[in-house]
């Protein structure tokens, strides 16, 4: 079950850390089912799985209120769930069904949901930078105190528009946080081959407060994000988070044979030593917040929710062909 209410401040600490576990597990189990749907040829097209990076979306989104904005990427299911979307309508969208968040018109790379402040995933690398910055502009102009988070992969550091937006955000002190998910790869190319200089300096060059965080440590992500969100909400301007993480699976579901661009050992290191869910689960147990049985029951609860959501989506009808011409214009 995805908890829908979020109050960044004054929230009970225990409830927060357990919810973060739950949210990460929800993303993990959601994505496993996506892969399964793909393997069973039930899903049209491809999808980019967030497995391994769960702490990033969850740590950041738990620092936000429901009405705060996010923009997301081609690897967007995690952001979407972490911001509060319902798995059944997400699966429906992935299958191109009418019941999906976008009536089937968007698919995996374009899920959007005004109710949870999700301005949309984007299939253009760096494509959300303008939208997120614009949402922050609105928030400031209208005085709503909303904060906007722009999620993007480290590959988007290659896109010039990001620098244009960071310049605007810092000049105008906009409440936007640039959340750079550094999972080391741009598709099949290691980021060291595509990124000169220091990643954090790409933001500090504009005078933007920036911090590198262990993206496998959900509490560290949450703490850093909360600090930046608070600053932004207080009118002190943008922030940049460099979230060091790793995607366990292929660039997309079809990217199975990966040896030509990265070593199995590397993958194994991250999955066995740096898994954000395992690490956080161990911490919860060590703290005595929950025991293993408690974690197991969370997992099985979520598993059945996800199974029901998949079933809903698989059985849901496609849109009628006549709908193709709807929603072109508002």
């Amino acid at each position, binding site marked *: 079950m995805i908890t829908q209410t979020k109050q960044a401040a004054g929230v009970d600490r225990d409830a927060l850390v357990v919810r973060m576990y739950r949210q990460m597990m929800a993303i993990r189990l959601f994505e496993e089912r996506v892969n399964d749907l793909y393997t069973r040829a039930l899903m049209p097209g491809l999808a980019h799985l967030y497995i391994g990076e769960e702490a990033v979306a969850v740590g950041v989104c738990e620092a936000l209120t429901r009405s705060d*904005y996010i*923009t997301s990427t081609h690897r967007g299911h995690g952001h979407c769930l972490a911001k509060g979307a319902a798995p059944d309508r997400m699966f429906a969208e992935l299958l191109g069904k009418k019941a*999906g*968040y*976008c*009536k*089937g*018109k*968007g698919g995996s790379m*374009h899920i*959007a*949901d*005004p109710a949870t402040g999700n*301005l*949309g995933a*984007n299939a*253009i690398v760096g*494509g959300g*930078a*303008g*939208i*997120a*910055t*614009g*949402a*922050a*502009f*609105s*928030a400031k*102009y*209208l005085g709503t105190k909303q904060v*906007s988070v722009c999620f993007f992969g480290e590959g988007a550091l290659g896109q*010039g*528009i990001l620098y*244009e*937006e960071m*310049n*605007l955000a810092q*000049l105008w002190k906009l409440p936007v946080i640039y959340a750079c998910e550094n999972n080391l790869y741009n598709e099949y190319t290691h980021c060291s081959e595509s990124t000169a200089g220091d990643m954090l300096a790409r933001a500090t060059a504009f005078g933007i407060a920036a911090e590198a965080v262990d993206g496998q440590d959900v509490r560290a992500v949450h703490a850093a994000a909360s600090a930046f969100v608070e600053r932004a909400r207080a009118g002190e301007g943008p922030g940049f988070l460099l979230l060091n993480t790793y995607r366990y699976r292929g660039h997309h579901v079809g990217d199975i044979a990966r040896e030509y661009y990265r070593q199995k050992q590397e993958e194994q290191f991250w999955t066995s030593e740096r898994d954000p869910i395992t690490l956080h689960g161990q911490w919860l147990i060590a703290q005595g917040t929950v025991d293993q049985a408690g974690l197991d029951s969370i997992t099985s609860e979520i598993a059945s929710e996800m199974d029901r959501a998949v079933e809903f989506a698989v059985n849901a009808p496609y849109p009628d062909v006549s709908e193709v011409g*709807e*929603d*072109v*214009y*508002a």
Partner: protein
Amino acid sequence: MPEAAVQVRELTFGEAIREALAEEMRRDSRIVLLGEDVAEAGTTFKVLKGLVDEFGTSRVIDTPISEPGFTGLGVGAAMTGLRPIVDIMFGDFLTLVMDQVVNQAAKVHYMSGGAWKVPMVVRATMGATRRSAAQHSQSLHAWPSHVPGLKVVIPSTPYDAKGLMKTAIRDDNPVVFFEDKISYTKVKGPVPEGDYTIPFGVADIKRQGRDITLVGTSSMVQVALGAAAMLEEIGISAEVVDPRTTWPLDEKTLIESAKKTSRAIVIDEGSFRYGVTGEIASVIAEGAFFDLDGPVRRIGATHVPIPFSPPLEDATVPTERQVFEMARTMCNK
């Protein structure tokens, strides 16, 4: 003559646009203007001069030289409660914002299944003969016209400019609004004070005629009218039709005019090939074929980059004489 309730003044094309913006900004505080040197300088064409004095720098906002950046920001602002108007100083710089306009603004509503909308206006200029050479003279309105999800406005008169700008601002979709640079100060016409709007997708017959239909866009409406006057002298009655918006397109008016006159020429200032004339001529040909005396003819800018040298540049732009000659031949006079 009784005193009119609404006063009508002679305004330039540029003044009409400024008036529309000012009136709309008074009406709706969600409207903000973003662009390079739009505030104190009032744009390089001085079209926005004075707006910052009334609305302040929080609504008339000078940006860095970041067309993709501030256009993208405009998309996000439009999705979240504002009605931004972004200023692309020279339409040639649309090349820099196509991703934000085409992959983002135009598609957000559809991709989100109607969940989000983008009420945004992209103002851009068009038109040559300012001796500004190849990167500051293009008329690129064919590109956004090709993109589902956008609406595209190409006004020719101050009256139309004001009414269409108001419609653009109130529209809940991304609208690309093309302003002819030469017209800013050169074209004058009557403009009513106060509020009126002109619907999109309604062509205007700028001159009635019987023998041939001249379809003109933007500044080419003036060229068509000039040619029509010349044609009148040799006994040819030309009808001048101004589509006013390339999308939505008023196919009916275009087709009916051509059916009536049995001949048509489409004149546009964009590069000739794969431009606006191809679509409009095809629409007319498909709809009026059996009433036509001959093929719909087209005149666009010579299909070359726009040269700097005055005699060369002048040779690229459609002229009254060119339209006149073509029409005369078509009418066998």
